[in-house]
């Protein structure tokens, strides 16, 4: 049941070297640099996103993900959900408005898989980048690299998938769109949605908590994914796998790494989900096909290269 959470709104990633990271996220993936703050953080977004930013980069000693934030409908929803998060047993912290430039008060909370999440109701809206909201043209002329349209979702690794599923379903109103079940009936992967997308966030079972697998950016077409592959070779960027298709969600995809080892994905297409749909199930004996539909086998790196 929908609880007033709208969409994944931002992700803060730790990088070892800011200039190298900007060559990746801004110049290669094609995100737009929107702002910088006095902590040295850099704010970016995909050109179609209406809010001011969706990706925040922070230089640190240890790459990985600080948090993912979800935007909620309004402050009343924010109040309501804050109470429910406390009741659920989360550690809840208030982050004052302005701690991120242009973002209102954030409610930060932990999760059974060890990841940090946030809810917020307000963020400055600068509009789609480079085009007007009246009689808008198809796209702006001067996009860079892969011309990613938006931050779409992320995949996280951790232990207690059931606990995090309960939190996302019961408190935040997400639906389980797709899952992978092992032979004992244990869920080892869960793809959750708050929209009609096949996933707004996903989790895979892993012995170590609070790990980050990838942040994903949306492209329009398969041709764009192939062009992304060319750009990865042109720039000698570290490739993981692809271009290929996922069985899970059926998205067409390529995986590669930023210069600090955080995995990126650009993808197009994929299934849709409505609240009356039963979850789509894959079984672990078909895991190769579920993850990489064409190769039909997992590479070791997909399961172990995490930040």
């Amino acid at each position, binding site marked *: 049941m929908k609880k007033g959470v709208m969409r994944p709104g931002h992700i803060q990633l730790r990088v*070892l070297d800011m200039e190298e990271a900007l060559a990746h996220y801004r110049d290669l993936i094609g995100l737009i640099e929107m702002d910088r703050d006095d902590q040295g953080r850099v704010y970016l977004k995909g050109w179609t996103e209406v809010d001011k930013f969706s990706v925040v980069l922070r230089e640190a000693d*240890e*790459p990985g993900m600080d948090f993912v934030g979800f935007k909620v409908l309004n402050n009343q929803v924010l109040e309501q959900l804050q109470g429910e998060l406390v009741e659920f047993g989360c550690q809840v912290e208030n982050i004052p408005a302005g701690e991120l430039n242009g973002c209102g008060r954030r409610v930060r909370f932990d999760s059974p898989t060890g990841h940090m999440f946030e809810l917020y109701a307000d963020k400055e809206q600068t509009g789609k980048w480079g085009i007007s909201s009246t009689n808008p043209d198809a796209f702006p002329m001067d996009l860079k690299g892969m011309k990613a349209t938006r931050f779409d979702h992320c995949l996280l690794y951790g232990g207690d998938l059931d606990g995090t599923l309960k939190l996302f379903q019961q408190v935040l109103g997400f639906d389980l769109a797709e899952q992978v079940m092992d032979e004992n009936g244990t869920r080892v992967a869960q793809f959750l949605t708050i929209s009609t997308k096949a996933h707004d966030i996903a989790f895979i079972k892993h*012995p*170590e908590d609070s790990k980050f697998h990838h942040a994903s950016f949306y492209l329009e077409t398969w041709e764009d994914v192939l062009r992304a592959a060319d750009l990865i070779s042109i720039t000698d960027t570290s490739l993981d796998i692809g271009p290929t298709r996922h069985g899970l969600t059926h998205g067409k995809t390529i995986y590669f790494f930023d210069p*600090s080892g955080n995995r990126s994905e650009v993808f197009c297409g994929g299934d849709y989900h409505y609240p009356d749909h039963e979850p789509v199930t894959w079984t672990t004996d078909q895991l190769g096909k579920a993850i990489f539909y064409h190769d039909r086998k997992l590479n070791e790196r997909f399961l*172990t*290269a995490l*930040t």
Partner: protein
Amino acid sequence: MTTTAQAFNTRKEQQEPRCSSPDVSEQSYLVQVVNRDSWFTARSDKSLLVGMELDASQTIAVGCRGGGCGMCKIRVLAGKYDSKRMSRAHISEQEQAEDYVLACRIYPRSDLVIESDHFTVKPEL
């Protein structure tokens, strides 16, 4: 019929390793991987891990190639290298002092003797 991989292995067993190639300006160094009983040549202008990949060797596990995932963790037993920033989650200050490194973040500056396969997943209990 010999596969490419076998041809490479034969070459490595029979040929005396050369420490520099005459036709390129960057240096090439010999890297011995003691735990794999093998060796490869690595260029000074590429990270040790990418150098290994370019020499078609599989003696160090390849992950992100960016110093984040820890899969390429090795210990340098002898030789000189320069290093870029490495994830503290995988190389503590203590380990760094003991020449544990991420192969994707070091650049060889002499022949090296290394021990690979130092990556472990740490379950949090």
